[in-house]
């Protein structure tokens, strides 16, 4: 393993999403945005709902919508992302995501307070998917 790259594996609860050599990785942790570069210290970090951005070995960028999970940097420098849900930008149906977000918004407007949090989460998920699919997410947490 060279110093310039790290092996990254992204796995969701339903499927293997991505594996490869990456130069850098950014994710949104529960306690804020984090960046991982090759040679990062071993870590175990809980992830929030947010985009996972990778720059691969060949310079291509990958964007993945991640809904919660953990990021694990092993003592061998390998990075494993265990996401509850993870979708690559190219796998997201933008129109459907928009329709879902629309519905989530409507539900949010008329629902009761009892399950407000759950509806907020589902709206956030859809917004993230739209963000990731259309490639408009900000460089910093936004």
């Amino acid at each position: 393993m060279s110093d310039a790259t790290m092996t990254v594996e992204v796995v969701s609860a339903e499927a293997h999403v991505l594996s490869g050599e990456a130069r850098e990785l950014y994710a949104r942790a529960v306690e804020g945005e984090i960046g991982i570069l090759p040679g990062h210290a071993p870590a175990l970090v809980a992830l929030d709902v947010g985009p996972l951005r990778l720059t691969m070995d060949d310079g291509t960028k990958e964007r993945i919508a991640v809904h919660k999970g953990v990021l694990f940097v092993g003592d061998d420098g390998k990075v494993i992302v265990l996401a509850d849900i993870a979708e690559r930008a190219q796998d997201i149906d933008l129109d459907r995501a928009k329709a879902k977000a629309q519905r989530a918004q409507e539900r949010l407007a008329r629902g009761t307070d009892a399950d407000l949090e759950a509806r907020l989460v589902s709206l956030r998920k859809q917004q993230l998917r739209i963000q990731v699919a259309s490639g408009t997410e900000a460089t910093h947490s936004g």
Partner: protein
Amino acid sequence: MAGSGQIRQLKRRIKSVQSTQKITRAMEMIAASRILKAKGRVRAARPYAEGIHDIIRGLAVSNEVRSHPLLVQRDIQRVAVLVNTSDRGLAGAYNANVLKVAERTIAEEEGKGRTVDLYVVGKKGAGYFAYRGRRALQVWEGVADTPHIDEAGDIAETMMARYRHAELDRGWLVYTDFKSSLTQVPVRMELLPVKPTEFEGGREIDPEFIFEPAQDELLNTLIPRYVEAKVFHGLLESSASEHANRQRAMKAATDNAKEVAANLSRIMNQARQEQITTEISEIVGGAEALGD
């Protein structure tokens, strides 16, 4: 005596049996391809479940997990039974088999004087229990065929929330284990409480690691994921089993249809032959009468 009317009737029956056979054959082939897909999904879900399990075990070495709300053992008074059945029928004895295990579990728990709360995945199971006057607390429809993790999460959370609030003291998961395309076994598994032994034997995660948030908080978020993964696993195994059972049932139906059609055409041929024989003997008889 066999008339042409009888032959026409037989012809019609053969046609109807054959068209049924076409349908069951198509269903058999669809089910066969669905088994492959479902098996693939079971396999694809494994790395996540194993990853979560490994991390929890690693953390459990130097952290106390016994006090986690999902591991706390109480005197058992109220029990939840979650049964995985299918939404659609024509799957042989699939539902009957898994429901038998559910019934046995319910009988056992009630025999010990405990209250049983029923949760059902699949229309078939819901119908079965409703008919017997036992209402499920909650029914999930449209999940069994191709389960997704958010649905599994929803189902798991329903039970976990009640467990955390001490409204439940135990949770059973009843599903069908897909051993192979030929054998599927209905099984039950104690979902809650999670047993501390399940988290033993891990390789300690170096305390020098950067933990964000702290280790105990990480455990708090990961243990529910572990339970969700188990429910998801049960759903996926059940779905693969459902398709395997349907394939087998539809193969049997196709074979039966073939046999019925063969028998009917034999009868029809016999009737036709008889008719011809009768006609010939009538003609011969008529000719002889004229010839005299």
